[in-house]
C-alpha cells in the first residue's frame, strides 16, 4: 500500500530530514510513526501526499511510483488519502461542516450524500453543536477534530494522521483512537504519527520509530519506547 525505498529528503541544501528510509506498510495495516520532535514524521506524511518530492529514493502508494504520477493526476492520488494535518489546515472561510463537506465535494459527490454524511461524521467526533462555526470560532481541539472528520468523511483507502490528538484531552484522544481503530478494522490502512506515548503503549500496534531521519525501530506490536 505504502512503500518507501531508500528515501532521502534534504530540505534546502543542508537540512537532512530523512536518510535512506525504507519501509513497507501493507493494506489494512495500522502503524504508529513515533520519534522526537524534528525526527522527520511530518516529512514522511508530506512525501506520501506528494506535497514534496524525495531528494533520492522512491515512494510507492497504492502500487504506483509517486514520481511517475503526472501533475494532472495528483488530485486523484490525494483523494485516495485522508489526512489529518498537524496544523489542521482548515479553510478559514468555511464552517466546520463546510470544511468537512469540501473533502466530499472535490470527489464530485452528490449534495444529498454530503448533506447526510457530514453531520454524522461531525457527531462522531463530538462537534454536532459546532457545525456552523468558523475555524477561528473553534478551540484548538475542536479544530483538530474537524480536521479528523474531514479526513474520514470520504472513506479513503488510506488514512494518515499527523499528531491527531496533540490538542485533545486524554478522554477525547481515546475516543479518536478508537475511531481510528474501527476505521482500520473495515480495511482502511492507517498511519498515525504521534507523540502520545500512552496511546501507543495501549494500542499495541506496529510502531515505526524515527530518530534524526532514520528508522531505528520497527516492531509489529510495539510500544512508544521499546526495549532496544
Amino acid at each position, binding site marked *: 500500500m505504502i512503500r518507501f525505498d531508500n528515501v532521502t529528503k534534504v530540505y534546502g541544501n543542508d537540512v537532512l530530514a530523512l536518510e535512506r528510509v525504507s519501509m513497507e506498510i501493507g493494506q489494512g495495516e495500522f502503524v504508529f510513526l513515533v520519534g522526537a520532535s524534528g525526527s522527520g514524521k511530518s516529512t514522511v506524511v508530506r512525501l506520501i501526499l506528494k506535497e514534496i518530492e524525495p531528494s533520492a529514493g522512491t515512494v510507492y502508494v497504492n502500487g504506483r511510483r509517486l514520481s511517475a504520477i503526472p501533475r494532472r493526476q495528483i*488530485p486523484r492520488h*490525494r483523494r485516495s488519502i485522508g489526512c489529518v494535518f498537524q496544523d489542521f489546515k482548515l479553510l*478559514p472561510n468555511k464552517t466546520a461542516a463546510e470544511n468537512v463537506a469540501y473533502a466530499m465535494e472535490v470527489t*464530485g459527490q452528490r449534495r444529498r450524500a454530503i448533506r447526510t454524511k457530514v453531520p454524522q461524521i461531525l457527531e462522531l467526533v463530538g462537534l454536532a453543536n459546532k457545525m456552523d462555526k468558523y475555524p477561528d470560532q473553534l478551540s484548538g481541539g475542536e479544530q483538530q477534530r474537524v480536521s479528523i472528520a474531514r479526513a474520514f468523511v470520504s472513506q479513503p483507502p488510506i488514512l494518515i494522521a499527523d499528531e491527531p490528538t496533540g490538542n485533545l484531552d486524554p478522554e477525547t484522544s481515546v475516543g479518536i483512537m478508537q475511531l481510528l481503530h474501527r476505521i482500520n478494522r473495515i480495511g482502511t490502512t492507517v498511519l498515525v504519527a504521534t507523540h502520545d506515548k500512552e496511546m501507543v503503549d495501549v494500542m499495541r500496534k506496529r510502531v515505526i520509530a524515527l530518530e534524526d531521519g532514520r528508522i531505528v525501530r520497527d516492531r509489529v506490536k510495539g510500544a512508544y519506547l521499546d526495549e532496544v
Partner: protein
Amino acid sequence: MRFNLGFFLREAFKNMRLNLLMSVTAATTTFMCILVLGIGMLVNAHVSDIIRSIGERVEITAFFPEDATQQEIRQAREEVQSWPEVRESTYVSKEEALQRFQESLPEIAQNLEDNPLPASIEISLHDPADSQAVADRLVESGYFAREDISYPAQTIDRLNTITGYITWALRGATALFLISSVLLISNAIRLSIFARRKEIEIQKLVGASDNFVRMPFVVEGMVQGLIGSAVAALVVVWLNFFFVDWANRNIPFFPISATAVDTVSTMAILIAVGVIIGVAGSYLSVRRFLKV
C-alpha cells in the same frame, strides 16, 4: 467529475460575502479604471467628431471666368455636385459676391465703379484631405483655370497633419488607459488572491483539482469585473448624455454631436474589458499558487 456550476457559483458568492473588503476593493479598482478608460473613449469620440466637422467647414472656391455662359455655369455646378468627395456646393453669383463685399468692406466698396467680382462656386468636402484632388479635377473639367481656384492649402495641410497626430495621440492615450487598466485591475486581483494563497494550498492538499480550485476564483473575478465595469459604463454613458446636453445648451456653436458616441457599443466594450480582465486576472493569479 461532473462540472458543478452551481457549486462554483455558491462558492464564489459565499467567498465574496466573507471577503467583502477584498471584493469591494477589487470591484472599486475595476470601476475606477473602467471609468477613466470610458471617459477617455468619450473624449476620443467627441474630439474625432469635432475634427470631422471642422474638416467639413473647409471650402474650396472656384471662380468662373468673366466670359462663362449661364449654360456652362449650370453644367459645371451639376458636375461638381455629382462628385463623391463633395459634401455640398453653393453657387455665388456676381451680384451676391458684390453684396458680400459691400457688407464686409463698405469703405472700399464705395469706391468701386462697376462689379469687378466674378461668380464662383463654393465647395465643401467630406474630408479636407481630398482638397488637392478636387482642385485638380476642377481644372481637368475645363470650366476653371488653375489660378481661379482658391483653397486654404496651408491651413488644410496643417489641419490634416494635426488632426492626424491628435487621432494618434488619442489612440495612444486610450491604449495607455487600457494597459493601465489591465495592469491595475490584475494587480488588485493578484493581491487579493495572494491574501488567500494558503486557502489554495489547503484545497490542493485535500485533493481538489486545479480547475476545482480555480473556478470559484474565476467566477469571483468575473462578478467583480462585471459589477465594477457595468457601474462604470453606466456612469460613462450618463456623463456622455449629460455632456452633450450641456454642450448643446451652453456652447451651441461648438460642434458637439449626440451621435459622436455609440453608447451601446461603448458600454459593451467597457463591460467586456472589465469582465475579461477580471476572469483572466483571476485565472492567471490563481495559477501561481496551484503548484502544490
